[in-house]
């Protein structure tokens, strides 16, 4: 196989249908860019799940009465509740947090928001029993059992709050993937069209190649490479697009949120991690489309 020959065929082919080539590259870029964006959201969700998984607890808030009078959970009903919780199935550990500790951790969480700290009074903080579950499914059973018991104010599953956040993120991910898919269809059709056009403009060459006994592979390779090269250029543009949108948009708008640590930051490392996937997907899709087009529509 003569590399220089194949290479010059590819360059010629791309140059000859330059408008189609540009259209093909741009649609591929948008499609792959959206795919990359979706993958970044997936990474974000994964990381958040990692971060929050360990911290999520079921919190049994105690009544004001208990919060005020029992500082170490040694009296009834707190001690009784604690031992019952510990014995319930699916419970890994139970920790008591008294009013002082609750106030301290409140102050810590809202460290960056002094106006909130100013209005918070220590007397408003409930003491609580923090229950770590080994089996998250057990929450409703525990809630049913302890809700309304003497000394219990309410039973809250922190996972509920997270679920809402994850639902939003999953929605964002699904939306990006859907648009990416629609764009990918457009890209596929364009790739297919460009190859047919390219094969048509080069029908004399390919006709001669067939007659002098060039293998099918040799005849088709330039077309396949043409599709793959444009796919890869599209993917590169998409990566550049992601880098620019991170620097110019995400960092500026989301910067303060990243700062609090509530949502983990999307870093350049993340873009580096999804880039190979984008490149491979772009190359594979354009090569496959090219191959199928050549098989079905072009007689070489």
């Amino acid at each position, binding site marked *: *196989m*003569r590399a220089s*020959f194949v290479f010059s065929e590819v360059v010629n082919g791309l140059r000859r249908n330059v408008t189609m080539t540009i259209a093909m590259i741009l649609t591929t870029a948008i499609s792959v860019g959206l795919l990359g964006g979706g993958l970044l959201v997936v990474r974000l969700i994964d990381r958040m799940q990692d971060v929050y998984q360990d911290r999520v607890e079921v919190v049994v808030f105690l009544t004001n009465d208990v919060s005020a009078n029992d500082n170490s959970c040694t009296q009834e009903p707190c001690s009784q509740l604690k031992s019952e919780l510990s014995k319930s199935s699916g419970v890994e550990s139970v920790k008591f947090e008294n009013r002082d500790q609750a106030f301290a951790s409140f102050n810590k969480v809202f460290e960056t928001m002094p106006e909130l700290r100013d209005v918070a009074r220590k007397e408003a903080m409930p003491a609580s029993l923090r229950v770590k579950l080994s089996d998250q499914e057990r929450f409703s059973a525990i809630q049913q059992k302890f809700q309304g018991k003497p000394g219990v104010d309410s039973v809250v599953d922190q996972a509920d709050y997270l679920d809402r956040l994850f639902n939003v993120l999953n929605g964002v991910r699904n939306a990006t993937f859907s648009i990416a898919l629609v764009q990918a269809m457009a890209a596929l059709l364009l790739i297919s069209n460009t190859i047919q056009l390219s094969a048509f403009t080069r029908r004399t060459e390919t006709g*001669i190649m067939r007659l*002098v*006994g*060039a*293998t*099918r592979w040799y*005849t088709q390779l330039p077309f396949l490479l043409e599709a793959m090269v444009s796919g890869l250029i599209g993917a590169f543009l998409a990566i550049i697009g992601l880098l620019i949108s991170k620097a110019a948009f995400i960092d500026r708008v989301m910067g303060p949120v990243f700062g609090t640590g509530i949502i983990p930051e999307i870093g350049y490392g993340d873009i580096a991690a999804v880039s190979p996937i984008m490149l491979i997907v772009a190359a594979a899709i354009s090569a496959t489309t090219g191959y199928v087009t050549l098989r079905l529509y072009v007689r070489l």
Partner: protein
Amino acid sequence: MIRLEHVSKGYKTSTRPALDDVSVTVDRGEFVFLIGPSGSGKSTFLRLLLREDVPSRGRVFVADWNVAKLPRRRVPRLRQRIGCVFQDFRLLNNKTVAENVAFALEVIGKPRHTIRKVVPEVLQLVGLDGKADRMPHELSGGEQQRVAIARAFVNRPLVLLCDEPTGNLDPDTSQDIMLLLERINRTGTTVLMATHDHSIVDSMRRRVVELSVGRVIRDDARGVYGVGR
């Protein structure tokens, strides 16, 4: 070298077969004219040899290949041993004479040093030395056909198939092309030429196979065009 055994070929679009029980044998090194009016089956004959088509019935052999039975991936090997020349030359207009000839070798993966050696040789053989760097549109029709012949012959095929190679040329130029084909034939290459050109067939006095409505109606060892009409 070429053997057709009771070959018939029908096309879906036509009730009449393009070839009807044709049996022809061409030995190595022969020069054969294939004549007959348009639609008599000459093109189908050539297409079957190149495996552009497969016969509906019968068997086709080129060299030792059973052409119709050849697996798809072996077809290029067959075509590498068959040279083709057409009425319309089919040159690449954006390549020079030498590049046109080299193209046939490049696309079958011949090494560059071989190409550099054999292209000038074959250009000299067809009488185009000194015109290697010309573009096709700068050449006369006869010269363009020489380039096409050089391209068909550069890989030293066993068989040279010519489909009306003089169809677009004036009589004098046609005569030159025939001399060239004869010279190629003398190197041992079997030449099969489909033509309408009476004067050429008559002057060459070579074997003539005449087709009519898909059947062989004449096979003369030293024939002329018009006998029997």
